[in-house]
């Protein structure tokens, strides 16, 4: 399976710095879109692709750190690589705490920038695959009937059919049929896998 092409965003108000970064990323074949301000980015074009944001800590209007919060609130989960002219310690601590994957100082070392960007893209790709998997599971879960969902919730707690039947006031035979339906619809091969899926879907919390 070929990998989805990545996309890197550069947000820096200074044209010299921004174009330099853009150039370096393009020279290794990475598609780049760059913006001069946080607002431009929020209103600008975005493509659904794995990527990351290279963000200047100091931006006119909104600071990079505030911008990071706005991104989180807006549900944009792209990994952030901070760059700054003055790498002061409190700022970098705050940036790392709020989830930045790297904090680089200008002028940038070419290799550290490329390493950080690649790590960011990789992290985003993994996150996207993870969430894709969950949404697939959710789709499968949607196929279950309400009764099947009830049975599912009890099956993954490890209870025997007999107990489930008693609890739901069903015959043991009916529970067995439901169970095989659930396994088929969820495309699971074992009870352990079903349990793991329930975990991913956040069902384990719902057990009574």
């Amino acid at each position, binding site marked *: 399976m070929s990998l989805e092409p990545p996309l890197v965003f550069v947000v820096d*108000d*200074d*044209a*010299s*710095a*921004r*174009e*330099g*970064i853009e*150039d*370096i990323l*393009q*020279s*290794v074949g990475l598609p780049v879109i760059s913006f001069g301000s946080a607002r431009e980015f929020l209103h600008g074009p975005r493509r659904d692709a794995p990527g990351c944001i290279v963000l200047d800590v*100091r*931006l*006119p*209007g909104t*600071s990079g750190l505030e911008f990071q919060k706005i991104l989180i609130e807006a549900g944009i989960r792209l990994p952030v690589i901070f760059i700054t*002219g*003055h790498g002061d310690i409190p700022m970098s601590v705050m940036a790392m705490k709020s989830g930045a994957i790297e904090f680089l100082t*200008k*002028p*940038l070392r*070419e290799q550290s*920038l490329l390493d950080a960007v690649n790590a960011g893209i990789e992290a985003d790709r993994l996150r996207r695959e993870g969430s894709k998997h969950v949404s697939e599971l959710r789709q499968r879960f949607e196929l279950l009937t309400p009764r099947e969902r009830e049975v599912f919730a009890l099956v993954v707690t490890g209870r025997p059919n007999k107990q489930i039947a008693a609890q739901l006031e069903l015959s043991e035979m009916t529970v067995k049929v439901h169970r095989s339906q659930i396994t088929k619809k969820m495309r699971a091969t074992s009870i352990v896998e079903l349990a793991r899926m329930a975990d991913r879907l956040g069902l384990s919390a719902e057990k009574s």
Partner: protein
Amino acid sequence: MIRRWRSQYWFSAAVCLLGSAALVASAYACLLIGVDFAAAGFSLLTGVVVISTFGSYLCAVVLSVVAAGCLSYFFSPPIFSFRVEEQDDLMALLAFLTTSIVTTVLAARIRRTSEEELRNTRAELARFARVAILGELTASIAHELNQPLAGLVSSGDACRRWLGNQPPNIERANQSLERIVRDADRASKVVERVRGLAKNTPPQKAAVSVKEAVREVIVLTRGELEQNQIRLEEQFADDLPLIWADRIQLQQVCLNLVVNAIESIKDLRGGPRNLLVRAEKDASDSVLLTVSDTGAGLDSDHTEDVFNAFYTTKPEGMGMGLTISRSIIEAHGGRLWASGNVPRGAKFQFTLPRCREGAI
């Protein structure tokens, strides 16, 4: 006023003429009262010294000669003639002339030296204040220099990669090189400006574009503005006339006002953080420059106090910035004043007369 006229030729001529007339009149008066040679000589000497304080070296010499002439004409026998018969009288006249010339020339020299020293001290003080502002802006200037350098390094790296590709991408490499040149140019301009401000050159007036000069120095504060989350708005009218000023001193005043504004906004919690720099033409065809902020503002009863020497609100401030700024603007024939900004903050404004056509 007199200080400004003093360098003009017509002023020296007037001092010589009027002074001579006064000397002749007083010598004649002395004669009428019946004062003797020595007393008349003394009063003329006093007159020469007093009058020549207004004029130049040349005035001093001319007046001394005129006074000696009066003495010879009115007091040494034969009276009403420049002829001197007695050896003693001749000696007395010569002694008078020498004393008079030496005294007045010395007085003029002392005055000139002290004026020069005053001027130098002022220029030194202004330069000292400039360097002090630059010191406050070190981080900001470093930031402003670091940006193009960062771009330069990245473009250099990129250029190498474009050339290293198979096949080499010459077009993109060229674009990178163009940016390198542009960024290096930008960095060197920053250095040039800082050097201009720190350099020790005597004030030199020339026709200056306010917009250009002001923009050049505001750039140096950009790092500081960004760090403190201050929004800067610049408004320059299109019809601004050129002004006749020392560019560096004008920049110093602007820098001083902008840095003060940043200081007053810096520690605010909440509220807008805006800084406005506006230049426009005023009714009398001068340029009016306004620097207003939404900072802590001024004590409304004591807006004039901020211009006093050693008045400061900053813990590490010297309290000379505004005093020096005002003396600079006034030396340019303009005015600098402060007022409250609406709805909050302070507003500093100054005017500078336009450059007259003939002055260029």
